[in-house]
C-alpha cells in the first residue's frame, strides 16, 4: 500500500504532558510534606527519624506493590491485612513447633519464612481462582476471605496472642531491626520488591497483559490473552508480597493476634490511589505507589512530632489527603 509521510519527530501531544504531570504529582506532594515536616520540627529530618518512618512504611509499601498490580488488572484484594495476620500466626505456630527438632537457629526461621511465602501465594491463588473461575466479583471474594483469615488467626490464638519462642525471636530479630550499609533491612526489601514489581509491570508480557485486561477486558479476551490466568497470577503475586511483608513483621513484635495487620488493606489501597493509579484499572506506576505509602506513614510521623493537631486525627488527615489526591488527578485530567 502507499506510503505515508509521517511526522517522525512529532513530540507526543497533550496526553504525554498530562502523563508527566500526574506522574510527578505524588513526588511533589512528598517533597512538600518533607519540607513541612522539617519546618515543624528539626528532628523530623534526623537520620534516626527518617529510617524509622521508612522501616515502618515497608510493610504497607510491600503489600501496596502487589495491590498496584491487582488494581491495574482491574481487581481488588481486601484480604491482605487479615492474610498477613493469618500468615504471621501460622509462621509462629510452626516455628514454635519446630524448636524441639531444629532448635532456635536459622533453620527454624528459614522454614518459617518459606511457609510464610507459600501460604501467601496459596492464599492469593485461592482469591484468584475463586473470583475468576467462580465468576464472583473480587471485592466480594476477598471480603469473604478477609473474614476467614482474620477469624482463623483469632481461633489459633484462642482469642489471645500467639507468641514466638524467645530463643527464635532473638535470632530472628535482626531481620527487622538490622541494617546493611546503614540502610534498614525492611527498606532494602521494600526497594527490592518495588524493583521486582516495576520490572514485572513495565518489562514483561505479564505486565502488559495486566494493563490490557484492566483497560478493556473484552479486547484482551478477543486478543487471545489468558485473562483468567493473568488475573489469578496478580493475586498470587499479591499473596507473595503479603508473605514477604509478614516475614519482616514477625520479628518486629514476635507475636500475632486477631488485631495484627488491622486495616492494612485500606492503607495499601490508599497508597496505590495516592500514587495515582486509577481504581478502575488499566494504568498505574509502582514507584509512585511506594511514594504514596511513604506519604501516608509520614503524615502520622509529622503529627507525632507536632502538637498543633492531635495525633488522634491521623486518620482524618490521611483521609483528606486521599480525597485530595484523587481530586487533583481528576483536575489535571480535565484541564488537558
Amino acid at each position, binding site marked *: 500500500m502507499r506510503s505515508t509521510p509521517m511526522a517522525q519527530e512529532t513530540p507526543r501531544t497533550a496526553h504525554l504532558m498530562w502523563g508527566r504531570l500526574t506522574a510527578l504529582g505524588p513526588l511533589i506532594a512528598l517533597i512538600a510534606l518533607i519540607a513541612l515536616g522539617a519546618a515543624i520540627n528539626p528532628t523530623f529530618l534526623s537520620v534516626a527519624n527518617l529510617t524509622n518512618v521508612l522501616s515502618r512504611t515497608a510493610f504497607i509499601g510491600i503489600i501496596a506493590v502487589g495491590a498496584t498490580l491487582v488494581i491495574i488488572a482491574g481487581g481488588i484484594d481486601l484480604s491482605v491485612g487479615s492474610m498477613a495476620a493469618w500468615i504471621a500466626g501460622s509462621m509462629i505456630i510452626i516455628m514454635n513447633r519446630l524448636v524441639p527438632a531444629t532448635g532456635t537457629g536459622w533453620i527454624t526461621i528459614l522454614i518459617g519464612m518459606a511457609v510464610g511465602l507459600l501460604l501467601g501465594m496459596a492464599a492469593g491463588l485461592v482469591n484468584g481462582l475463586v473470583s475468576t473461575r467462580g465468576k464472583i466479583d473480587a471485592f466480594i471474594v476477598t471480603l469473604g476471605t478477609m473474614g476467614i483469615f482474620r477469624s482463623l488467626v483469632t481461633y489459633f490464638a484462642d482469642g489471645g496472642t500467639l507468641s514466638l519462642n524467645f530463643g527464635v525471636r532473638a535470632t530472628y530479630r535482626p531481620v527487622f531491626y538490622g541494617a546493611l550499609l546503614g540502610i534498614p533491612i525492611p527498606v532494602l526489601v521494600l526497594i527490592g520488591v518495588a524493583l521486582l514489581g516495576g520490572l514485572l509491570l513495565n518489562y514483561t508480557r505479564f505486565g502488559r497483559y495486566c494493563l490490557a485486561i484492566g483497560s478493556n477486558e473484552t*479486547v484482551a479476551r478477543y486478543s487471545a490473552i489468558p485473562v483468567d490466568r493473568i488475573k489469578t497470577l496478580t493475586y498470587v503475586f499479591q499473596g507473595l508480597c503479603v508473605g514477604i511483608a509478614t516475614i519482616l513483621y514477625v520479628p518486629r513484635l514476635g507475636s500475632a493476634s486477631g488485631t495484627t495487620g488491622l486495616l492494612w488493606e485500606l492503607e495499601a489501597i490508599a497508597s496505590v490511589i495516592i500514587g495515582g493509579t486509577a481504581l478502575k484499572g488499566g494504568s498505574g506506576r509502582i514507584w509512585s505507589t511506594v511514594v504514596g505509602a511513604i506519604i501516608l506513614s509520614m503524615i502520622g510521623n509529622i503529627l507525632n512530632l507536632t502538637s498543633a493537631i492531635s495525633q488522634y486525627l491521623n486518620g482524618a488527615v490521611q483521609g483528606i489527603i486521599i480525597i485530595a489526591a484523587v481530586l487533583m488527578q481528576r483536575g489535571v485530567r480535565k484541564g488537558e
Partner: protein
Amino acid sequence: MDSSDVLLEARGICKDYGPVRVLFDVDFSLRRGEVHALIGENGAGKSTLVKILCGLIPQTQGELTYKGQPWRPLGVSEAERQGVVMIHQEFNLAEDLTVEENIFLGRELRKGWLLDRRAMRRLSREILAELETDIDPTARVRDLSVSQKQMVEIAKAISRKADVIIMDEPTAVLTSHEVEILFKVIRRLVQSGVSIVYISHKLDEVKEISQRVTILRDGHRIATEPTEALSADEMAVRMVGRSLEDMFLPKTPPPEVQPVLTVRDVTVPGFAYHCSFELYRGEILGFAGLIGAGRTELFEGIFGLRPRAGGFVERAGRPVEIYSLKDAINCGMVYLSEDRKGKGLITLMELAPNLTLMSSVREAGFWLRRREELQELERAIGEYDIKAPSLRSLVAELSGGNQQKLALAKVMAIDPQVIVLDEPTRGIDVGTKQQIYQFIHDLAATGKSVVVISSEMQEIIGLCHRVVVMRSGRIAGVLSGDDITEEEIMLYATGVKGAA
C-alpha cells in the same frame, strides 16, 4: 441563497492537537432543512470538525454561529439542550444500561419526583418501531450487536427534539435495508425543518440523501458543491486527489480440492443453528445476511469466543477442538471483530502494544521487546497506510478509519492461514477500501483463505468467490459464480428462497 437560511455556520476553523494542525481554516455552513454531506479520506478531519460543531472539543481558531448567535456550547449536554445532537462514530452508549435508559439518558421523563418508566418505554417502542427494528427496549446495550447499537444511537438522536443532527458514519455497519429505513427517517426529519450533517464513505448514499456536499482533504476544505453537480466518481477523485481504477479485481475462483476449514452442524445457542460450510484454499467466502442473522455470533462460536453446542470443525481435514481463541490461533485462524472499540483495540493504549497484543500471545518470551514492537509498528504503518500523529500516539488519537487499519494489522500480525474479517472496511474511505480489497485478493492469491462478513452488498458481490447467506441463525443458501447478485442474496436473506 439567502443567508438567513443558514442555521449553523463555521468560519475559519483551525484545530491543533499539540503541535499538529489537523484542520486548516475550514468554512462550513448548514442551511435549515438540508442534508449536508461531509466527505473525505480517513483522517481528513471530518470527525474533528463535527466534534467542534457540537461542542465536544474546542476549536483553536475560528468562529461559530448558530441561529444567528455566536455559538460556544460548553460541552455536549448544553449543545443538546440548544438543539444540536450528534451520533458519534465511536458509540457513546452506556453499555450496562438498557436501550430505553440510553435513549432517554440525561433527559429522563418524570412524573413528580419519580421516573415515568411507562412513558419512556412507550416512547422508546415508538421510536424503535419507526426505525423498523425489533430491538427490545429493555435489553442491555452490552448484549446488542454492533449494528443494533448503531440503531440505538440513531434512535437516541432522533428522539431528542433537535434542530441539527450530526451523523458521523451512521451507516458503516448497516445493511442496505436499514440504510433505506434511516433515509426514510431523515427525509421526514428534513421535511419538518431539521438540518442534518451527514458523514459517510459510501458515496452513493451521499448522492442519494444529500443536497450539498463538502469535501475535506488533509484538513483543508477542497470544495462545497450542490450534490447534483458531482457524480460519485467525481467525489471520490476529488477527495482522494487521484483517480480511482476499478474497485474490484477480476475473480479467480480456486479449485475446490480440499477444504482448509470444514464446519459441520455448529450451533451457537441463541444465535446460530446447525450451520455447515466449507472454506477452500485460496478462497474468499462471503457471509451475507440482514442484521441479526447471526453471522458474527456463528464465527465467535467457531473461534471459541462464545459457547457452542454440538457440531464439529475440521481444519485441513483434521478435526480440531477449539475452546478458546488461543486454540483457534494455534490452528492458524484469526478473527477480526466488527466491534473495533469494544473488542478490537484498547483505545487508551499506544499503537505498538495494541498491534502486538495478539501476536505476542504465541511467543514464548517472558520479557517485552519494545524496540521490535516499534519496528513492527513502523512496518504496519507503511504496509497498511496508517496515518498516526506519531509512533507513540494513543489509539484514541487516530481517526476511525485508521483505527480500523490498525485492527486489521493486529490480526494479520500472527500470519494466519484462515482469516475471518467481520466488516473489514467499516469506516474506511474509498481509496483505502480499494487497497484493502486488493490486499484481501492478494491473500487469497497466495493460498490463504478469507471469510468476509459484510453488510455491504457491493463488497460481497465484487470480492467473494462464493457467498453464504444467513437468515435468522440458519444458512439459507450458498451462491457462487453468476448467481452472486444483489437480488439473489436478498431473496435468501429475506426468506423468499431457501430453507429457513
